[in-house]
Each structure stands twice: as structure tokens, then as C-alpha cells.
């Protein structure tokens, strides 16, 4: 059985006959883009897929542990967070853009933005437009872990232990270095776990946890750039 993320029908499962054959195995890789035709007698049936490979994303990333972990994490999060057969065109476009940019030098910052976009699509978007306390939009430095609204440096200083740090690149302030990307992953992870994945039984996918752990380790080892 294969699960696809489609533009018009959301996350949609179907049976793939001959999925284990040598011909099909390369097509059915996590993260690949396929052209799919779904057939079933009734719409509520599982149905069968006829698949044709459109773009092999995974093959180019097999030798890159960090990008491969990001790919698997994105697919696992999509699988865990999106309901079945509910159209989410923005989630489809977002994941397509992420997969297309996983080989770019700024892939890690794009990944963080994708996770925040997924939260938004699920109705749990963060409000990073202005400070929740002062209404001003300068020097935003924190996010409230409860409301998801930004807090400015001055207003949040007294509560900094209870607030989540907001990496500057998410509000157009500064570059996305590995440290700020890691803070972005922690920020998105908090809200994914608390809001988007809290309804399901599984919680945060282990693939996402392993990706963040790997990113943290490599960041600590290399110090700076991960291009």
C-alpha cells in the first residue's frame, strides 16, 4: 500500500500491485514525485494506483545523511499531521517546494519555514507580525509557547526563561546560520508536538527526532556552515 500527498485530494492511500517488483521498487521511494492514476469501484474504497515516476528526489540525497534525514522527517511529519483524503493544496505546494530545494545551500532554513507553513496549514500558524505585548514589530526575539505570538526583546526580557527564542531569519533579521536554524527547529517542534500532533496516538515521528539530533550533532561538530 502506498500513501501519496496529492494536490486535490490530500493524503491519499491506495494499493500498488507489483510494488515489490524491481521495476516498481525505485518508483516507490519516500519523497519521490509520481504521476498517479487511482481507480476504485466506489470513492470510499481503497482502490489501486498506477504510478509513473516523475522525479526521483531520494536518489540524489542517499549519500547526504542530513538532507536524507530531512526528507524522511518531512514525509513522516506529513503522514502524521495531515488527515486522510482532506484537500490541503498549500501543504502539497509546500512539500513540493521543500523537496525541490533540498539540494540548495539554504535547504535547512527552507525546512524550518516548511514546518511553520505546515503548522499554518493545519490552523496553528505562529503570529510573527508584531509583539503580542506592545504591538510593535521591531526587535522581535521570543515566541510565547502558549499562544504562538511573537514578543519583542524588551517586553520579553523579564520572562525570557518561559519564552521560546525566535531566530532572526524567520522575521527577516539576519542570516540562517546553523544555530538559528536549530532554534527554528526547536520552535517549530514545540508547536508541532503540542498542537498539530497532539490529536494522534503516535506523537512526534521518530524520524523528525533523529533529524534534529543529527542536525544538532553536525552543528556542534562543524561549528558553522552546513552547505
Amino acid at each position, binding site marked *: 500500500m502506498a500513501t501519496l500527498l496529492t494536490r486535490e485530494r490530500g493524503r491519499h492511500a491506495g494499493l500498488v500491485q507489483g510494488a515489490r517488483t524491481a521495476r516498481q521498487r525505485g518508483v516507490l521511494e519516500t519523497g519521490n514525485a509520481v504521476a498517479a492514476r487511482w481507480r476504485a469501484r466506489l470513492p470510499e474504497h481503497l482502490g489501486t494506483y498506477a504510478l509513473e515516476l516523475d522525479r526521483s528526489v531520494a536518489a540524489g540525497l542517499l549519500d547526504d545523511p542530513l538532507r*536524507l534525514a530531512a526528507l524522511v522527517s518531512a514525509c513522516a511529519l506529513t503522514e502524521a499531521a495531515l488527515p486522510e483524503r482532506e484537500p490541503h493544496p498549500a501543504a502539497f505546494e509546500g512539500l513540493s517546494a521543500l523537496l525541490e530545494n533540498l539540494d540548495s545551500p539554504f535547504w535547512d532554513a527552507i525546512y524550518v519555514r516548511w514546518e511553520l507553513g505546515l503548522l499554518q496549514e493545519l490552523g496553528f500558524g505562529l503570529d510573527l507580525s508584531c509583539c503580542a505585548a506592545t504591538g510593535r514589530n521591531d526587535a522581535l526575539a521570543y515566541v510565547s509557547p502558549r499562544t504562538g505570538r511573537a514578543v519583542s526583546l524588551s517586553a520579553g526580557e523579564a520572562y525570557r526563561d518561559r519564552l521560546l527564542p525566535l531566530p532572526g531569519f524567520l522575521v527577516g533579521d539576519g542570516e540562517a546560520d546553523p544555530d538559528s536554524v536549530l532554534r527554528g527547529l526547536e520552535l517549530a517542534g514545540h508547536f508541532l508536538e503540542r498542537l498539530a500532533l497532539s490529536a494522534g496516538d503516535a506523537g512526534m515521528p521518530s*524520524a523528525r527526532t533523529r533529524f534534529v539530533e543529527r542536525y544538532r550533532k553536525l552543528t556542534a561538530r562543524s561549528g558553522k556552515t552546513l552547505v
Partner: protein
Amino acid sequence: MNSPEIERLIQLLAKLPGLGPRSARRVALHLMKKRDGLLTPLAEALGAAAEAVRTCSVCGNLDTRDPCHVCTDPRRDQSTLCVVEEVGDLWALERTNSFKGLYHVLGGTLSALEGIGPDDLSIAALVNRARRPEVSEVILALNATVEGQTTAHYVTDRLTECDVTVSRLAHGVPVGGELDYLDEGTLTAALRARRPF
């Protein structure tokens, strides 16, 4: 309606890989027609295998001995460990007759979608084996799939604490393969792994 014994035979055969209820029915009928020549010897062979076969406590291979014949063979190179996903992969490599080291069967691969984590695989035992002073190289012979390579990267991380060289099988054009018929992924991997000629 068949007797319960025949129905049970068909049900059990249908659980074999590649067989559904219809083909299981055909196989059962074939076995019963060749009762003396096939059904009885097969039943005896299955009984003998069920009695004798065990999992090797060292490498995870299936054999009638524990440790298995590969682990106890003194002619094999004790310094090289080849890590495979399943016993079937070990047997495939043995058929090539080109690897003379020892094996380690992981018992699967990490899979986010199927919920298989590191604790479900024989990774801790592999690290313990790789720590032994005579081991100098670990070859990761895992599938060239997302799950296979995710597992390979994870195992590589875990082996950093051991004093071993970690290598992996090459990815690329298969022997007898024609470029025109290869998928883009294989061609991309082959181009990236090109070497001086």
C-alpha cells in the same frame, strides 16, 4: 467444501510470500496429487528444518548450528564485518563467492512510516562486535533505498566510537544494464560515484 485438513493446508500456504488464496489452492492440489514424490518428503523436510534450524547468536544468520557455519569457519577473514538487512541478503552475498569475511544481520531497516526504530534492530550487538580488536573494517551492504541508506548513516554514526573503517557497497549501473533503460536515480548515483578509468 474441502476437509478441514486441506483447508488448513491451503490457509497456511497462502501465508507464504508471493502466494494468494488461489495460487495456494493450486499448490495444495499439486502437492496432494504428488503425495509420495513431493508432499511426504516436503512435510519431512519442513519438520526437520523446524527442528534443527536456529538463529545464530553471533551474526543472526539461520543455520542448523549456533554459532553458524560462517562464524565458525577458521578460514574466513575475522577483520571484516559485512552488515546486511536480512538473512536473504547474506545468502545472496554468499552466492557471489567473493566475500570471505564475517556477516552481521540487522534484522530490518529504520522505517519512519512503519515505526521501526534503532532498538528494534541488532545495532547494539554490531557495535559490540566492531569493538573487538581484530575487526578493522565494517562494510555496509544495505539496500540503496531511503530506508536502507538512512539506516546506513545511523549505523555509521554509532560506529564512530569503534576503531574501524566503515565502507559501503557502490551504487550505479548494474552489470548488463543499458543506460537507456535505467531510472534517473540510478544514473544520478552512477554519475556521482564515477571513478578514474
